[in-house]
């Protein structure tokens, strides 16, 4: 790999051991992918997770004196302020979240604690080179905006934030962004929930590939959030195209860059229904409802408020969102409606965090397969249902 004088200085340790480590990791990645050189990045997003590996790596960089050249936005951990009002936090969990906060703050990250940076605070333009981690974010910036990012890990994105560069390979090159599988969507795709199931099902049918969708018209931003999050959780798809909708796919030919699709598959409503049945716990009595994986938009918060207005929830209902959206919900009166019904809006929080221990061993309802996926390590069960149906279930305590 060829390095510039500055990159060589970083590798040699002239900028301290933290920056040196970051550049070494990127050089190893570049070598693994046969990248010829590094290219500058103009935006970064780090999937901060507050998990052991995350903290270990961030503190190692801090100890080595590293700071971010391209300051990243970051993923949620949990809001200790919000959770003090909901549950009793274990001291070690609160200590680790504060240590993570301190480490990232020292590195110079912008502490947005939000997994939908592509909707607020870190919105790229077409063709911009990025280093984005977070499973719903990478497909969104690549596919919907036509910006260019590989499927970065939290650590590799942080290394790029520190050094300001990323190895030139993969989805940064136009030729690697061509679709290879044509996906005919025969299902009607009537609401955003159908996109959750589509996203989860497609990787099973096509494996590691760039899908090109036909038969999808005018998906909402929530539908696209859901689609990307599930494509990249159920499988490993960080780029897709929708013919006539996404910027690199004005026609089928453009989406495939003139090549013939290697495979064609059809997705039927029956398959989406079967997917949901497989992922969801059986119905019956539920103990709570949990939303916001990925973080809810103000429109989704408004939808929940509309459903619970002047009613009483039978079970606790939680919505995870950004601090900006939570403040907006407060201003617009949605928060008051939801709180009076017995629900709670929390900011800066991910469902895969120890602040939810009080729900372990219980059965919840959600609209997101991704939300249910990680709880396999946490002994939580989830019924997965469309948003309106699941809120109705939370009002009754049963689905």
């Amino acid at each position, binding site marked *: 790999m060829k390095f510039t004088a500055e990159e060589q200085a970083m590798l040699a340790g002239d900028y301290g051991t933290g920056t040196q480590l970051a550049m070494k990791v990127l050089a190893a990645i570049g070598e693994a992918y046969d990248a010829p050189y590094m290219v500058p990045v103009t935006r970064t997003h780090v999937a901060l997770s507050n*998990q*052991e*590996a995350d903290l270990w790596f961030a503190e190692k960089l801090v100890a080595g004196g590293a700071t971010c050249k391209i300051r990243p936005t970051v993923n949620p951990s949990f809001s200790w302020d919000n959770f003090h009002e909901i549950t009793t936090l274990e001291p070690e969990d609160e200590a680790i979240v504060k240590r993570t906060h301190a480490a990232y703050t020292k590195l110079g990250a912008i502490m947005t604690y939000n997994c939908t940076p592509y909707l607020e605070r870190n919105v790229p333009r077409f063709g911009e080179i990025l280093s984005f981690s977070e499973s719903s974010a990478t497909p969104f910036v690549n596919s919907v905006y036509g910006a260019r990012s590989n*499927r970065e*890990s939290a650590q590799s994105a942080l*290394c790029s934030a520190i050094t300001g560069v990323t190895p030139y390979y993969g989805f940064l090159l136009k030729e690697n962004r061509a679709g290879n599988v044509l996906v005919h969507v025969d299902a009607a795709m009537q609401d955003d929930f159908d996109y959750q199931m589509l996203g989860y099902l497609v990787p099973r049918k096509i494996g590691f590939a760039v899908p090109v969708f036909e038969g999808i018209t005018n998906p909402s931003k929530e539908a696209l959030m859901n689609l990307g999050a599930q494509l990249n*959780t159920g499988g490993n798809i960080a780029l897709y195209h929708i013919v006539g909708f996404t910027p690199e796919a004005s026609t089928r030919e453009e989406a495939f860059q003139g090549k013939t699709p290697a495979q064609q598959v059809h997705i039927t409503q029956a398959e989406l229904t079967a997917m949901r049945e497989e992922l969801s716990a059986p119905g019956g009595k539920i103990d709570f409802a949990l939303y916001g994986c990925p973080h809810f938009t103000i429109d989704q918060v408004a939808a929940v408020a509309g459903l619970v207005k002047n009613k009483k929830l039978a079970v606790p209902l939680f919505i995870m969102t950004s601090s900006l959206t939570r403040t907006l919900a407060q201003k617009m009166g949605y928060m008051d409606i939801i709180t009076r019904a017995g629900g709670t809006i929390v900011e800066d929080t991910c469902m895969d965090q120890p602040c939810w221990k009080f729900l372990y061993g219980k059965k919840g309802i959600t609209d997101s397969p991704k939300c249910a996926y*990680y709880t396999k390590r946490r002994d939580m069960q989830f019924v997965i249902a469309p948003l309106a149906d699941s809120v109705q279930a939370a009002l009754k305590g049963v689905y």
Partner: protein
Amino acid sequence: MGKTYTCHKIAGGRVSGEIMFSKDPICFYLIDPKTGIVIEKEHCLYGQSITGKILVFPYGKASSVVQADGMYQLKLSGMGPAGMIVANADTTLAASAIIFESPMVNKAEPAFYEDAPQGMKALLDAEKGELILL
């Protein structure tokens, strides 16, 4: 020494172990760090331990965070695989292997996939880009 095959280094190291094939993609976060056992119900390796194995799999899956944490915890507990041979390595997987120094290669010769029986011992020299059936 048995047959030798070429491969391409992602993360360096020289290790040996029994070959374990997975037709399904791997999420390291859904492997119990205490036992090395796959806890993902729908997975073809569900209930089996990957500890000390040369794990051969198509690609990694799941979010940009949890692969690293899964690998880190397996590293700390010593219950991780000895080495990994992957067909399609995404950056999340490759970066995790590099940072946590878990030997990993891709681009193994097609003949390897045809020849190597499940459970056979193999030596993986990621540094040299070599795979040897023992």
